[in-house]
């Protein structure tokens, strides 16, 4: 029997893996992929809670908004990545440390 917990576990795993991706990827696009994972994990949680805890559609609506905003953020983020690529000729995040020290 699949309960809320299962979905929440999935969501947690997605979140954690997304976190790990963000933390460990050298490629900036990879980092963005991680961000998407995190968002998806959150979305899974939303929808699961919506289904198992609250009725109605509020959770789903929220998940929709998340998707919208994730798309928007991905667009802008990738535009930035492209911009960085133009400037530094690389999207290795190790080299994006102009703000260091």
């Amino acid at each position: 029997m699949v309960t809320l917990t299962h979905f929440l576990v999935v969501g947690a795993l997605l979140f954690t893996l997304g976190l790990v991706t963000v933390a460990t990827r050298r490629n900036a696009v990879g980092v963005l992929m991680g961000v998407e994972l995190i968002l998806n994990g959150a979305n899974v949680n939303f929808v699961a809670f919506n289904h198992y805890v609250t009725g109605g559609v509020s959770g789903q609506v929220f998940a929709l908004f998340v998707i919208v905003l994730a798309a928007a953020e991905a667009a802008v983020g990738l535009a930035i990545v492209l911009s960085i690529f133009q400037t530094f000729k690389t999207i290795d995040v190790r080299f994006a440390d102009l703000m260091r020290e």
Partner: protein
Amino acid sequence: MKLNSSRIALWFFATLLVVVFIGYMTTQVIQPAAAVAGVPAPQPAGLTDVLFYVLAALTVAGATGVALSRNILYSAVGLLMALLGAGSLYVFLSADFVAVTQLLIYIGGVLVLILFAVMLTNRITEVNVSNTSFGLFGGALLFVSVAPMLLAVVTLTPWPQRTPEALGPTTAAIGHGFLTKWLLPFEVASLVLLATLVGAVVIARKEIKAD
């Protein structure tokens, strides 16, 4: 990653800390909570459950692929899998509109965009640029320190669950909600999209112009 004595020492201590942390959490926090909460008895699995497990595995596998893959394209594919899996799981949760939207927007839009970016920013020949900065080890540490906690929270918290409703279409309800209850966020979201559009164009255009 350069291996010298200071770095080794640093990693060693970090690991130590994480182990200590996890151990502490497990013994002091999780186990008592588990004892309190009581783990519910497992029940016999149906087709739905198996399907669920398969899809969940697909999702997690995809996510794992994103995290661990050296090749960025493989990561992208993993992402695809994860997204697909997530979408499928939405269906299980009677969120049909959200599932479709996920497929359309997320996979069809965002993933494609990501692929575009990958293609545009990598020399195709040089694809293996994904060595992690903190290394796999750092990632493992992170996973080990965060995941148990989250999982513990998730499993041990006595969620006020109710028996779920029957699966049914939600599109009308969502549409209706967008135009009544959530009108403002809806409009604002469209504004955001507009800003994003403009912003992306501006950012992207600038760089092209700079060439």
